[in-house]
């Protein structure tokens, strides 16, 4: 297990390095001159000033040198500073990351807590109301655009209850209840699509597991149905469910970008999109890198969860 994990960690390194090259190269495709962006809109600068800026930012170096300088700084934790506020990007993003993680955590929690029991029920009581509901949620959840759902939730809350999303972010450490109130609608908007996917997967995995011989054996030796379902069936059915949650984390992180924008939550996604709007490229670069790193890390956690759930997987 330890050996596998170390190997798996080492495998993350080339992927992350590759991602960093991709992000770096992407920003070299910027139309126009980077110097113009640095100077800003007020900008007419003499050729001498431009040359100085070029030298200061290392833009006169060959591109691989620029990359090496950049990645060297990144590895020391220096993501550069914002072109708008001159704040260090690394610190800014680290202060934003917890908001996005809380949002992602809440929506995974909501979708799994609702979808798994419903999926089990749909598989056990076939043809019942649970199956109908799960089919409906499975279909609608996948097709409802989350940003539209978010908009509708705000509309319903504001027209129906006179409630408006708070414009100032409340940290869970200072006021957990206010924070939950604030996070609930964004988390629900994100959760629906994931819930649909988890529901489908739980149902089909349960159906498959319930037809296995060991479930028959467990029933034949007189175990209570509840024990059969929980200990023998559900635990095994959870493996594909966890896989699918892991795969969906990428989509979830992508969606947080939009949802944070709608609810004005100053997380990673919000910072990223505003970086794009303001053409603040160091911030964009850092945010994409950090989101990719988080995503790769989550997939690592998913692999570790397998080993816990399935003792047959011991990874060499």
């Amino acid at each position, binding site marked *: 297990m330890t050996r596998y994990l170390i190997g798996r960690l080492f495998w993350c390194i*080339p*992927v*992350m390095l*590759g*991602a960093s*090259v*991709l*992000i770096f190269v*992407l*920003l070299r*495709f*910027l*139309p126009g001159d980077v110097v113009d962006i640095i100077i800003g809109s007020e900008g007419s600068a003499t050729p001498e000033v431009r040359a100085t800026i070029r030298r200061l930012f290392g833009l006169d170096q060959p591109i691989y040198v620029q990359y090496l300088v950049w990645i060297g700084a990144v590895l020391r934790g220096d993501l550069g500073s914002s072109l708008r506020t001159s704040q260090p990007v690394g610190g800014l993003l680290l202060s934003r990351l917890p908001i996005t993680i809380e949002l992602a955590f809440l929506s995974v929690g909501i979708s799994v807590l609702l979808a798994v029991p419903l999926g089990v029920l749909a598989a056990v009581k076939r043809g019942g109301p649970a199956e109908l509901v799960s089919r409906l949620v499975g*279909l*609608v959840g*996948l*097709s*409802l*655009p989350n*940003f*539209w759902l978010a*908009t*509708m939730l*705000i*509309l319903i809350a*504001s*027209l129906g209850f006179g409630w408006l999303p708070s414009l100032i972010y409340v940290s869970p450490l200072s006021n957990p209840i206010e924070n939950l109130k604030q996070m609930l609608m964004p988390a629900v908007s994100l959760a629906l699509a994931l819930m649909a996917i988890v529901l489908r997967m739980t149902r089909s995995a349960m159906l498959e597991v319930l037809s296995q011989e060991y479930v028959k054996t467990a029933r034949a030796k007189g175990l209570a149905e509840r024990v059969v379902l929980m200990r023998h069936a559900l635990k095994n059915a959870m493996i594909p469910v966890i896989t699918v949650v892991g795969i969906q984390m*990428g*989509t979830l*992180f*992508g*969606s947080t*970008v*939009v949802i944070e*924008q*709608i609810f004005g939550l100053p997380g990673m*996604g919000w910072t*990223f*999109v505003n970086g*794009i*709007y303001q053409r603040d490229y160091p911030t*964009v670069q850092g945010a*994409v890198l950090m*989101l*990719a790193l988080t*995503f*790769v890390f989550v997939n690592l956690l998913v692999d570790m969860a397998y080993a816990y759930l399935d003792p047959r997987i011991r990874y060499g």
Partner: protein
Amino acid sequence: MADRAAALAADLPLPSVRTPPTPAARWRRIAAKNPLGVLGTVLIALLVATAALAGLLAPFDPVAQIARRLTAPDGIYLLGTDEFGRDILSRIIFGTRISLYVGMVSVGIALGIGGTLGLIAGYFGGWIDNILMRLMDVMFSIPSLVLAIAITGILGPNLRNAMIAIGIVYTPTFARVARGPVLAVIQNEYIAAARTVGARDGRIIFRHVLPNVTAPIIVQTTLSLSTAILAEAVLSFLGLGTQPPEPSWGTMLGTGRKFMETAPWVAIFPGFAIMLAVLGFNLLGDGLRDALDPRLK
């Protein structure tokens, strides 16, 4: 001797010959087993018809500012008007064109590049496979929507760049989907036979491998159309895709959001349009998967 054999044969019951079902009968059977797939087909047919006949169906010019701003739905403007006094129904009808166009172009890019890379990786194996697929892993390590937003943000916010971005982002998916079945197909004897008679790699890939791996690629194409339409809507919603005054569902939703308390119809109806299109392609893709997967017959 011969007579006896003939006499014996005449006594034997004829083996019952089952005539293979006609293609139409086969599709009817598949359709009967898969009502949701049929629903998806109908939705997509309606969508395509709406796009094709938009000029006839739309009651008004989608970009003409013809009425009072933010008129509530009434007998003339069935879905109301937006903040510029444009007819929302007409804009949604014309928006179908943009959504389908973006879907087809961007999925076409992803299918063309990704599919080809997947075929090459699977067919040649070895270091080519290793390099190509590790490259795809790297692209997968960045959440696709984040990458798409970054690409459009960098290239400049417009429809063409949004299509390029969506195409690039879904390329690795197609590479993986195409590569998997290729690995199985190239084990077959007919591939070895084709090699033996001296067929070139290109010919083997396109004549012998490709036709046998199309089923998963077709399913993925259909499902990707739904995600591509959704991605365009998100990009336009954020102001990075289709630019005004073009009627894109995402843009309509994005701008309509600002007037939501006073004129909710501006944001509500484009959302339904997106939902129906996405639902249609999802159902069609699921249906095709059931119909094309031989294990499920």
